[in-house]
């Protein structure tokens, strides 16, 4: 197995976009040696405990194919830079040099290293300073191409100072004999605001790693809805590098069959006076399994931190399972933190109440379960997209 990835890397030749002036090739080589030394994840690693990753990766090779990225056809304000990542690299865009590979830590992170070494394409978005983008930007769906294997899409999103934008992505679809290994790096500039909404409603396997860097007084919100996916692992890593930041991570999941959804979040409070807020709620049916792991680190300097976390689950079948674990590491003394996790059943009293008003059990159940998701979906500010998500949630509830 030694030098396995190196030889693939060498054989890749010019399939991997690179350029002369940036230090990208250096970044790739670093990632490659990290990858050679740690390899891909397995279930013996704490970070991948309970995960089905080992099974999913079995027999999958690195896919060097360029994931075709269809750019959003919706009109964008001319101020926003929006292109494929390979083009931004070829153009020697200064932000590539500045940000690409800087936040997605490869140490002890085999899949991130794999992506960094082998990514071939993705999306580059730059919202310049002082720009308010009214309409949301839709990201294209990453799809595993026909060859299968592990596909490496890569996005870089940079939101400039005082700017505000909403970015929507729908699905990372793969097939069951392939896996999407997506990485995105996101910079939310000083006093900027980014809302990101994701809808995962496709079959297939994916690991989605997001690395968010927040500068002073910035606001970041993320709402992830997962309704399908054989294996969906979402790793969200937020680092607050300035004071006065606010970060909101929300998630709703409803899965069945033998599917697995796994939300791992890491929030790092490095500076004083920041707020983080996490709410993940979900339904697990049939033989599905869910994982929530929420790590919050409050560094010594991060006084007056507020950090709240909650994970609520309803098991709809005897075979469904949920593993939930908060991990708080607090090194500052003046902080307000709370966390809570529940795994329960449908409220029978509420069900009876609705039935006693003439509502058939099936519909009553679906109303209650939909009500369960509202706390999260209410956080989607964009009305059109919220409507779409609600519709799919309801569809999913009614096709049980």
């Amino acid at each position: 197995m030694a030098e396995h990835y190196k030889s693939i890397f060498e054989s890749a030749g010019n399939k991997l976009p690179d350029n002369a002036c940036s230090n990208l090739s250096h970044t790739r080589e670093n990632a490659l040696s990290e990858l050679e030394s740690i390899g891909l994840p397995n279930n013996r690693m704490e970070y991948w405990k309970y995960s089905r990753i080992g099974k999913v990766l079995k027999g999958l090779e690195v896919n060097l194919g360029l994931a075709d990225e269809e750019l959003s056809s919706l009109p964008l304000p001319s101020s926003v830079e929006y292109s494929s990542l390979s083009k931004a690299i070829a153009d020697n865009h200064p932000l590539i040099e500045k940000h690409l590979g800087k936040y997605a830590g490869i140490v002890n992170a085999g899949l991130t290293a794999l992506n960094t070494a082998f990514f071939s394409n993705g999306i580059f978005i730059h919202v310049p300073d002082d720009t308010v983008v009214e309409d949301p930007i839709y990201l294209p769906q990453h799809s595993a191409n026909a060859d299968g294997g592990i596909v490496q899409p890569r996005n870089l999103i940079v939101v400039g100072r005082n700017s505000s934008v909403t970015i929507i992505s729908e699905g990372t679809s793969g097939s069951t004999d392939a896996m999407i290994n997506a990485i995105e790096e996101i910079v939310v500039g000083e006093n900027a605001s980014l809302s990101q909404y994701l809808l995962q409603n496709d079959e297939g396997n994916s690991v989605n790693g997001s690395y968010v860097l927040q500068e002073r007084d910035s606001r970041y919100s993320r709402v992830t809805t997962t309704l399908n996916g054989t294996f969906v692992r979402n790793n969200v890593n937020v680092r607050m590098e300035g004071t006065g930041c606010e970060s909101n991570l929300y998630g709703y999941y409803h899965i069945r069959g033998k599917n697995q959804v796994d939300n791992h979040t890491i929030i790092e409070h490095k500076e004083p006076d920041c707020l983080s807020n996490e709410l993940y709620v979900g339904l697990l049916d049939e033989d599905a399994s869910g994982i929530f792991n929420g790590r919050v680190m409050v560094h010594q300097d991060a006084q007056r931190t507020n950090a709240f976390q909650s994970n609520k689950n309803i098991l709809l079948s005897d075979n469904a399972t949920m593993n939930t674990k908060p991990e708080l590491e607090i090194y500052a003394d003046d902080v307000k933190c709370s966390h809570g996790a529940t795994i329960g059943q449908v409220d029978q009293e509420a069900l009876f109440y609705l039935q006693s008003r003439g509502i058939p059990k099936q519909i009553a159940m679906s109303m209650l379960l939909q009500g369960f998701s509202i706390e999260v979906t209410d956080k989607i500010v964009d009305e059109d997209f919220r409507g779409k998500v609600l519709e799919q949630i309801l569809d999913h509830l009614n096709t049980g």
Partner: protein
Amino acid sequence: MLSVKDLKASVEETAILKGINLEVKAGEVHAIMGPNGSGKSTLASVLAGREEYDVTGGSATFDGEDLLEMSPEDRARKGMFMAFQYPVEIPGVNTTNFLRTSLNEVRKFNGLEPLNGADFLKLMKEKMNVIEIDKSLTTRSVNEGFSGGEKKKSEIFQMAILEPKLAILDETDSGLDIDALRIVAEGVNRLKSSDNATVIITHYQRLLDYIVPDFVHIIYDGRIVKSGGKDLALTLEEKGYDWIKEEFGEMTEA
């Protein structure tokens, strides 16, 4: 309309209803009184179809049909309504949507067209005026964060919208202030007709001053031990339950 015969029910092997007999005819108002824990809410719950109670004997029919065989939703759709003693909070379920779903399910079952959004809002507004309920409550989740009195008013508001044949009001008066009590009572009276009936579970004569019952029953230890006219409630108000306990207490011990 409602005919309950020797109804027995238990929860987790403990007998709570020990043989209830009750006949309610269209146009009548019945009051059920009795000390705490005597089985009043259990009776209401069993009639509404709550599953945690096991019916161990007796029968109950509603318009001649076996009530105990029906699902809770069918009982409601055939015209039965229970105002809960403790209405449950249902976060995430919007009150207006809930009411509309409820009404339209009942209508559908009875062969009526569902009301569209506009017509429903009109109806809701009309009933809101009768019950004098705050409009903002209907935009919130069902009962969530409602005050005790608001919850009770909301039950009667639901009743006003569904216009049931048989309404069982379980201590709807407790928690209501004087004005709310009058409003609720007027609401009930306004809905009264020769086709429907009301069963009022209460501890207080106060409500019965407004809604005058044709019959008053006293439940004690899972049985109706005394029935009478409206004066029986006055006697209770005066004398309390001690004389009932003295008279019937031994019976349970035997």
